[in-house]
C-alpha cells in the first residue's frame, strides 16, 4: 500500500505536526496557535497597529525605560521604597533583559492560513480522495439532516467551534499541540475536554450509524 493511500499513518502525521510546530516557533519565536492567527488575520488594521507599536518596544532597554516611566507615573515616590534585588552574581538582576518577540506581519498570517488549506488539498490529492461533493455522507444525512438543513447544521457547528476556541483561549493547535507539549495545565484540561467530547460523540454516532 502506498504511503499516501487513504489516511496518513499516525507516526507520519505526528512527525509532520511536530515539524510545523517547531518551524513556526523557530521562524517567528511564537508558539503555533491557528485560532489566534485566524483572529488576527480577520483584523488586519489592529494587527498592523500593534505590530507598529510593539516594534518601537522591541529593544529590551527601551521597553524597560518606558515601563520605569509608567511606574513613576502610577506609583510615584513608592517606587523608591521597593527593596533592591540582591547583588549576588546569580541574582535575577544579573540576568540580561528578556527581548520581546516581534509580531509577524499580517501577510505572514495570510500565507500561513492559505498553506493550511493548500496542505489539506495536497494531502487529499496525494491519497486520491480529492473530489468536490455536495453531500455530507449517508450516515450524516440519516442521523442529522440532509440538503440545506445539513449545511445549516454544519455552519452552526462551525460557529460553536469558533465560540469554544475563543472561550477556551485556544484550539487544537494552540492548546493541543503547543500547550500540551509544554505541559501547560490549562491546555491539558482544555484538550482533555474537547478531545474527550469528540471521542465520545464519535463513538456515539458510529454506534447509531451502525
Amino acid at each position, binding site marked *: 500500500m502506498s504511503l499516501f493511500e487513504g489516511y496518513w499513518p499516525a507516526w507520519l502525521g505526528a512527525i509532520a505536526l511536530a515539524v510545523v510546530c517547531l518551524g513556526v516557533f523557530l521562524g517567528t519565536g511564537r508558539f503555533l496557535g491557528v485560532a489566534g492567527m485566524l483572529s488576527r488575520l480577520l483584523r488586519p488594521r489592529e494587527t498592523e497597529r500593534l505590530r507598529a*507599536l*510593539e516594534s*518601537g518596544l522591541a529593544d529590551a532597554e527601551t521597553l524597560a525605560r518606558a*515601563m520605569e516611566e*509608567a511606574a513613576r507615573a502610577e506609583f510615584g515616590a513608592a517606587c523608591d521604597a521597593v*527593596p533592591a534585588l540582591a547583588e549576588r552574581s546569580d541574582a*535575577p*538582576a544579573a540576568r540580561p533583559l528578556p527581548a*520581546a518577540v516581534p509580531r509577524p506581519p499580517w501577510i505572514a498570517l495570510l500565507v500561513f492560513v492559505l498553506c493550511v488549506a493548500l496542505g489539506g488539498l495536497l494531502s487529499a490529492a496525494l491519497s486520491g480522495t480529492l473530489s468536490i461533493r455536495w453531500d455530507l455522507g449517508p450516515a450524516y444525512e440519516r442521523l442529522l439532516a440532509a440538503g440545506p438543513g445539513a449545511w445549516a447544521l454544519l455552519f452552526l457547528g462551525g460557529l460553536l467551534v469558533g465560540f469554544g476556541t475563543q*472561550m477556551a483561549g485556544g484550539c487544537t493547535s494552540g492548546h493541543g499541540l503547543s500547550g500540551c507539549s509544554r505541559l501547560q495545565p490549562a491546555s491539558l484540561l482544555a484538550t482533555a475536554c474537547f478531545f474527550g467530547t469528540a471521542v465520545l460523540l464519535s463513538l456515539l454516532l458510529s454506534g447509531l450509524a451502525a
Partner: protein
Amino acid sequence: MAAKQCPHSSGCPLFATFQVRSFLRIWQMNYCDATFERCARYQRIIEGKEVPLSLMPNGKELPETGASKKK
C-alpha cells in the same frame, strides 16, 4: 497563607522584565503577586483577547517610541 501569584505570569513578557529590574518590581508587588485579577493584561487573557506588549497592568498603554512613530 501565601498570596497566590498570577497564573499567567510565566508567559507574560512584562513579568519577565519585572524579574530583572528592581525598580520594576513595584508592578509585580501591586499586581502579579497580590490582586492579579485587576491586572488589565490578566483580564484580557481570560476574555480570550490578544494582549499587546505595550499594555501595562493598570490598563494604560506605553507611549509610542520614536521607532514606531516613523512609518
